[in-house]
């Protein structure tokens, strides 16, 4: 049977995968294998429901319910000495189950331990803001909103942070186009010159490496220069400009094309 690929995922895909390739797993250990983690987990379990817990690459990962997050982090901060929220963001699982996974990376400096708290939310559901507990969540939650469109309830300033305020679309979704979409192509033209100038200016060139040899407006014709605005037919003779001062520059030998050797064969 052919493997199922989600249709609304436009990201880069491996062009070849062996039919019989089975991905190995990063090993997981039981929380009981570490005393400190086990004690922390028991303390959390006593008050909140923990759906899954394991240790992976020296860090404890726990899955909780979405509406417990404020309580869990408050307990971790006040009683379990996890005083810093290093990082939080989301993972897009929309193509698989129409949901997001949110993770909070917690650090305890006294115990020298890190715990990752995670939960799932449905598409369109908001998360509870933990900005009251950790000020760092102020910017993290804004970034998450900016990148995924997940809002945080109770956040004081739920605005975009990295993208412009009036941007449309959420760049880190797997459905977001890689090359810039229709909105992105006209964003700056509309903003600076106005919609009516669209015909004159044209959409923004997103491929910065693109060279149009029939373009006489830009610096794309080195060695084939023509006066600005000339209509290009494609049969212009080679017009080599000399870009050095006639008087010469102190200490710099003047380049003379006739005296130099051009090596056509790089493999010589």
């Amino acid at each position: 049977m052919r493997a199922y690929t989600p249709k609304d995922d436009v990201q880069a895909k491996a062009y070849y995968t062996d039919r019989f390739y089975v991905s190995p797993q990063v090993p997981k250990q039981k929380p009981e294998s570490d005393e400190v983690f086990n004690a922390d987990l028991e303390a959390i379990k006593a008050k909140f429901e923990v759906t899954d817990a394991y240790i992976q690459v020296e860090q404890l990962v726990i899955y909780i319910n979405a509406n417990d997050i404020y309580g869990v982090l408050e307990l971790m901060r006040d009683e379990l000495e996890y005083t810093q929220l290093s990082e939080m963001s989301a993972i897009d699982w929309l193509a698989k189950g129409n949901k997001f996974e949110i993770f909070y990376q917690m650090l305890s400096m006294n115990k020298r331990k890190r715990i990752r708290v995670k939960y799932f939310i449905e598409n369109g559901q908001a998360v509870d803001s933990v900005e009251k507990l950790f000020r760092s969540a102020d910017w993290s939650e804004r970034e998450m909103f900016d990148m995924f469109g997940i809002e945080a309830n109770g956040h004081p300033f739920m605005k975009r942070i990295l993208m412009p305020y009036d941007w449309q679309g959420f760049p880190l979704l797997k459905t977001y186009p890689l090359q810039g979409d229709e909105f992105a192509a006209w964003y700056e033209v509309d903003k600076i010159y106005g919609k009516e100038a669209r015909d004159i200016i044209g959409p923004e060139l997103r491929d910065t490496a693109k060279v149009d040899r029939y373009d006489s407006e830009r610096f794309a014709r080195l060695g084939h220069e023509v006066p600005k605005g000339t209509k290009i037919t494609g049969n212009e003779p080679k017009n080599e400009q000399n870009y050095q001062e006639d008087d010469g520059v102190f200490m710099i030998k003047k380049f003379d094309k006739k005296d130099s050797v051009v090596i056509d064969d790089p493999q010589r």
Partner: protein
Amino acid sequence: MAQIKNRLTPFFENITFDREDNEMILNFGPQHPSAHGQLRLMLHLQQEQITKAHPDVGYLHRGMEKMAENMIYNEFMPTTDRMDYIASSSNNYGFALAVEKLVGLDVPRRAQVIRMMLLEINRLMSHLFWLATTALDIGAMTVFLFAFREREYLMDIIEGYCGARLTHAAIRIGGVPLDIQDSFISQLRIFLDKLPQNIKDYEDLLDTNRIWLMRMEEVGTIPTEMALSWGCTGPMLRASGVKWDIRKEEPYELYDEVEFDVPWSDKGDNFARYRIYMEEMRESAKILYQTIDMYQKCVKDGQTELMAHSPKYISAPKLDIMTQNYSLMQHFVLVTQGMRPPVGEVYVATESPKGELGFYINSQGGPYPYRLKMRAPSFWHTGILTDLLPGHYIPDVVSIIGTTNIVFGEVDR
């Protein structure tokens, strides 16, 4: 075609300057020489005093996390250079270490020593750059010239190693690509022997300088709780009374084998941060002396391997690729398709010159990371300005931004 000026309407168009409460909004940056890149601050002022600060970032946003999701792991390495471009090897290293932890690679000792050398040279470069730019912002032109001179020596050493001065890409997943050049150690020794005198020169110029003290002491004080709550790390946290250095507390590479101190202070002001940067330069020099000895011991013991041996993930040495068919095939697959780490996730934090640089990688077994989140310390060191600036005066803004040591390649990613 001319720009229509009134189309460029600001977002705060409803705010007027002549309100009854005499409040003024000052727009600081994004093109301001002391905004350290592309920081825009909207400052609400009562006379000269700031009542509200609103940092606006994103002017250098290149979508690196999105780029990472569409690149194979090795392909992404040069992109990490563009995060904290003042110390780019430390970004390379953070990413390489995260992938190595995910895959479970053991890096050869000689490569580890070289990596530590690069990391500490990068730390010195970053701190010298910090000192130079901050001193310049405050008006100490001499220190700027001195510190840039010393940084230039280090850049030359790095250039000799990897060919680049700023964007090094000097570290690979699984090791380092090259052994250090012959002149590396001798040049480094010359630099290190001179460094204590250089640092003393800076301190002689600054430590008792009346202007410097007025701009630094009791300005920008961050209490411990605020630093923890805002996710401050590195010198920002250590200046606020938390002695936390990841190299010491969660040692990676060979940091548990070298001796160094972690300078810290409980003052929390600009001057405390300045002192910590100076002391950290001395500690870095101490580590570098030890890594030179470690390197020479590696040479004596005949440890020549520079890359981890793991045919599934890492290409074989060039000699094998050129002589053995199977190594060539592996290399071809790894270059064209990329390595496929196991399914799982990892968060690895390293102590970059600015603070805790963390890479979270979620792998679904494909050649592209499913999700890659970069925890850049400067992001929160910029965020804290919201709470830190109110109460200060306009000239303090420049010195506070200076001592937070933010780099916008890292904030905006």
